[in-house]
């Protein structure tokens, strides 16, 4: 297949490109005009093509999309303010979908996020799967949750309006080389001191190469059309266990300050109540003091990848131990992707 991949130079995107090439697809990577590509190792691959465009502008998008069999949409805004995120994530998706319609490309795999679920409504230790409700008031949560939901709505609307064949993937906490910390652990005050908020909550980890494989496999399988899947690995370690495993690799070892989940939840509740009482709910408090965010990040839940396994036959290729080895020991992400670890031969 010929795949257009947005966000190709990002953390997940570069693994998705590598995985798609490895599986024999042709890749057209959409990369923003000023993004440096010197550190991308797959740009010389015979099945690789680079196209420069910014999704916030319609300029050049139809040409970029034309001829692709499917679009893998991973691009996401890094802006910190709401309107920056709206432009990068929502308007960007809107422009991409319009270009796809004009270019008559009718297949998209959207990489959304676990953050869209309504965690506060979930019962502690219940199972989070694709049938769980999404956040009803995303504006009160955070910009990321809001814009990811808007992005999903746009894709679904395109499916209804003009038959776009879509698949939505919601990865959990994606980790890999250079990205082993997850905000679901707590607060990393510095390299030396971590405040762990909670202990026993399972982490919905998704090793970046496992996730990349799921993204590409969904593109290949017609059974995935119209479906939404959570992407998490088989092993979902507790916060405590994951912290311990990270400590083994890190030098100097970070000192961990544990705070119980019940205390975190109580403090957030007090903060919410005080905000209502003193500021009529207008005060902007840090996320660790917002009940909705605290529940989204630290609530003890169980996670399932059953649906993804059953429908497309995906299995996480790397165990947690192997994934951590890959994350800490190999030289570069691209070497991991293309040459050293892969069991699947490259089509070169």
């Amino acid at each position: 297949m010929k795949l257009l991949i947005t966000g190709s130079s990002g953390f997940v995107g570069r693994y998705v490109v590598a995985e798609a090439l490895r599986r024999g697809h042709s890749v057209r990577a959409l990369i923003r005009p000023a993004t440096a590509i010197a550190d991308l190792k797959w740009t010389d691959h015979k099945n690789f093509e680079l196209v420069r465009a910014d999704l916030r502008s319609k300029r050049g998008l139809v040409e970029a999309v034309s001829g692709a069999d499917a679009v893998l949409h991973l691009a996401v805004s890094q802006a910190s303010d709401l309107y920056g995120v709206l432009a990068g994530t929502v308007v960007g998706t809107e422009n991409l979908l319009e270009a796809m319609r004009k270019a008559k490309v009718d297949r998209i795999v959207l990489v959304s996020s676990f953050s869209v679920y309504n965690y506060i409504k979930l019962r502690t230790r219940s199972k989070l799967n694709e049938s769980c409700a999404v956040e009803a008031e995303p504006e009160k949560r955070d910009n990321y949750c809001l814009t990811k939901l808007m992005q999903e709505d746009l894709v679904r609307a395109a499916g209804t309006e003009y038959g776009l064949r879509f698949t939505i993937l919601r990865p959990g906490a994606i980790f890999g080389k250079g990205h082993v910390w997850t905000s679901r652990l707590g607060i990393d005050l510095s390299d030396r001191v971590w405040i762990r908020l909670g202990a026993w909550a399972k982490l919905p980890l998704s090793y970046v190469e496992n996730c990349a494989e799921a993204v590409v496999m969904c593109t290949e399988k017609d059974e995935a059309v119209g479906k939404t899947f959570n992407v998490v690995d088989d092993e979902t370690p507790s916060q405590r266990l994951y912290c311990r495993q990270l400590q083994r690799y890190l030098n100097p070892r970070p000192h961990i300050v544990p705070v119980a989940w019940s205390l975190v939840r109580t403090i957030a509740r007090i903060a919410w109540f005080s905000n209502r009482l003193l500021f009529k709910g207008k005060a902007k408090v840090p996320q660790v003091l917002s009940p909705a965010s605290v529940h989204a990040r630290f609530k003890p839940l169980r996670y399932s990848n059953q649906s993804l396994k059953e429908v497309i036959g995906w299995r996480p290729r790397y165990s947690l131990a192997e994934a951590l080895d890959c994350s800490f020991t190999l030289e570069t992400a691209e070497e991991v992707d293309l040459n050293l670890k892969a069991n699947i031969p490259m089509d070169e």
Partner: protein
Amino acid sequence: MKPALVKQKGTLTAAVIGTGQISEEHLKYLRDHNDIFLSAVCDLSPAMAKFAAERYGAEKAYTEYRKMLEDLKPQVVHVLTPPHTHVGIIRDCLEAGAHVIVEKPIAPTHEDFEKLWSLARQKERLLIEDHNYLFNDPILKIKGLVSKGVLGEVKEVEVRMVLHVREKGSRYADLNLPHPSHQLPAGVIHEFITHLCSLALHFMPKQERYNEKGFDRITAVWNNHGGGELFKYDDLDAIVIDQGVHTRLRFSSSTWPECFTVAVRGTKGSACTDLFQPYLHIELPRKIKQLTPVLNQWALGWHLVKRSGRNFLDKLQQGTSYEGLSRFLQGTYRALKDGSNPPVTFEDMDRVSRMIDALVAQGRGE
């Protein structure tokens, strides 16, 4: 999200074109005032138009402003699009019979402004540019001190803005999709220069007559200290002298911290403020001459203690430096309803526009 209102008798119908960041301030005002009926919002992006319409209770969302004008015939239109698009959109709104409230700068040149003003007069519509900082608390207080003669005769005005527009992550420094303000005659600084000029002119004497350039003397040094192709200028240092009043306008993108200070110095005293971290520092002669500096410092210290607490609470409650915008809009809508003077007059806009033209001309070496 607010449900769309039903238009009540006697209310003005308003529409908004452009749903970027500044629209939030305008739309909050329109949402919170029941004497204004928000009939529609318009944006090139359907998702953004829908988002703003749902969030602020607009009845409809459009992606084509001409169609919106034709369908709804709003009485007031807020033009909040990037500055380089203003002229065409304002013209169409005026032609459609709408009063126009527009974000700064109203037009890229004084000539364009005059044409728009002429059209507004011909159509008997109000055309008003947002000079919101004139209505922030500290500026109103300084204006009060000047009006009452507490500061004596104003001799110096200094307006200084520091914005890190070149910082990594700033929308103005984005090389992938250059910000529209780079297309203005003075580039990014042109986006902010209306604020600098309107504040300076607020405290400068009214002009009885215009000389060719509008001011007795004007010197502006424009620089691009950071270099590169994207920025035309990232630094402005200008002196304007008119009727014996010295005014300094300063825009910097390299110093720290970000600030927006206004200082007014008169023959009897001086006052200064920072509109980003509001406080008001007033220096006046005290009864005991020898203790004047000390007493002024004590007064400042006490004021800073009080003000820092209030600023903290404001920040906590997501307060912004746009506090003057609601007063500006309130005055504008009052003028539309009862025919009173608008908060920003033709003379105000005209002088600002002339000053900007004169400053920009210096950059071109004219």
